């Protein structure tokens, strides 16, 4: 018994020492990394705004973005994106988009617990085969801005499609913490929605793994994660 006791005690001591070393190393690395964030007011990188590190001059709170290349001409992609009512085909949490005319649309968006949120937007910028931008109306339940830009990265690489979205982060310190968590979600959503859009435009269908399995809860016509 005594042996077991000392053994488990020394094991605990070892685990404790290991954890202390790991925490110390992580702290050291984080400190080094934050010292590495470089901002002397003279920003030189040629990268788009949404990729800039926090604490640099060009960082914008609440701005997320994603770019995909689509193997189709700019005109065709512009036409597909200009028709907002097609968005539910590839946007996972958009139930419907209604065209209200004059560049205004009503979006019905899925919210937690089966409820929905309405978003009223107005087109603020529309350059055929180049840019479409929209902004939420003041009476909208959610405040957001979005922009799609079409451009060429290099010859024979198709059309680059860049979606950037901005939202108003809640105020205050707890608000900032929540925003940090929330910021992830639009980013993931933008990435997934853009990939589905790419699949639809390039191939005419959105890829799905719907197929049989031995899992009773699944149907062979439903997508599985």
């Amino acid at each position, binding site marked *: 018994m005594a042996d077991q006791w000392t053994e488990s005690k020394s094991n605990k001591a070892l685990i404790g020492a290991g954890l202390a070393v790991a925490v110390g190393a992580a702290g050291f690395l984080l400190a080094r990394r934050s010292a590495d964030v470089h901002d002397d007011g003279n920003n030189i990188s040629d990268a788009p705004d949404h990729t800039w590190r926090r604490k640099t001059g060009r960082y914008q709170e609440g701005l997320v973005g994603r770019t995909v290349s689509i*193997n189709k001409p700019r005109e065709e992609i512009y036409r597909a994106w200009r028709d907002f009512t097609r968005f539910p085909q590839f946007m996972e949490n958009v139930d419907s988009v209604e065209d209200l005319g004059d560049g205004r649309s009503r979006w019905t968006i899925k919210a937690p617990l089966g409820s929905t949120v309405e978003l009223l937007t107005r087109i603020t910028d529309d350059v055929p085969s180049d840019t479409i931008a929209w902004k939420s109306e003041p009476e909208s339940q959610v405040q957001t801005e979005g922009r799609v830009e079409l451009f060429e990265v290099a010859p024979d690489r198709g059309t680059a499609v860049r979606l950037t979205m901005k939202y108003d982060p809640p105020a205050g310190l707890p608000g900032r913490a929540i925003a940090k968590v929330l910021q992830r979600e639009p980013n993931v959503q933008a990435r997934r929605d853009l990939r589905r859009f*790419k699949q639809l435009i390039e*191939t005419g269908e959105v*890829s799905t*793994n719907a197929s*049989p*399995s031995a899992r009773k809860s699944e149907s*062979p016509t439903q997508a599985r994660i």
Partner: protein
Amino acid sequence: MRALTWHGRHDVRVDTVPDPEIVNPHDAILRVTSSAICGSDLHLYDGYIPGMRAGDILGHEFMGEVVEVGPQSTLKKGQRVVVPFPIACGQCFFCHKQQYSCCDNTNPVETSDATEFQYGYPMAGVFGYSHLTGGYAGGQAEYVRVPFSNVGPLVVPDHLEDDKVLFLSDILPTGWMAAENCEIEPGDTVAVWGCGPVGLFAIQSALIMGAHRVIAIDHYPTRLALAKQLGAEILDYREVDVREALAEMTGGIGPDAVIDAVGLEAHGISIDNILDQVKAMGFLVTDRIHAFREAVLSVRKGGRVSVPGVYGGFADKFPVGAFMEKGLTMKTGQTHVHRYLKPLLELIEQGKIDTTFLISHHAPLEQAAEMYKHWHDDQNEFTKIVLKTEAATTKQEPKEQQHELA
């Protein structure tokens, strides 16, 4: 329908599951006639590939008859087709470059986050090979849904029996691409680690492409005998020090190109492999690269390294110094099967490639679980297993009658 399903490490079963249905416009449904068990299926069986879920249907080397088509499929009911294991859309940048196994669109958005995070970009969809590559049901089943059937499946002529064309789905083009990646020049010696089906097809392909000599390395006598039968010289690594033997056999120059047809579960008793095994148990590494290390150290200066063997995660003691200082070139990747279907079918029809010599066992789909165990435990005796469905046996009888009538 009946299908071979995965339930955990060393636990596969033949279950009754729902039939597949047409879901997307480019889909087709096949009634499978033949479906092989691949060496890479053992990585799933041994639990080395993450992203498996209990109930997944395995199998990515299959062929059969078209029984249903979506509105955008270019196939017709009744056609006999063999299906490439990677799923390719045919429309994206990568497919246009004929890098079909890098297709940008076939891994569904729901399942592609994992490879995007781990590899930087999402990988293509593959039949029956975990949710990392799409979570599509595989073809060790009576029926299978084939997405983008307008791009992948190859219609095969009726006079070629299943066994002759089945391996166009994976191992034949994989061996062929492995040899192609060696960029063989006249007078070259190619050394091949692993005499499993891919290694054997790589040997045959390298000789067709004009390699002067091929030296094959393994430890299973039956597999080494097959390599010898193809025209390779052979080394049993239990008998000789492979690096020394290769250097001596090539006049001290070393082989001009090497092929690692082993992958992440290398066998062999050596200090590096034992350390790899210990670390793999503690999840400090995932991939055991013993064969790869030996290949890199054995190849001549300025030589070529071709890696058809499957790796998935991280490795330890990658000999990056030898790699740089010797000025090596490495080519690897999942096979761009679609690129090779027609030229290889032609070689089969002309009798220039033998595709049946390695098949050691045929078994009905019902015995698939038992066959996995043999494939894992008796690698000397079981060199390739082909599963046959009931559709295969009922289909072949009328065909023989047709031949008699003709």
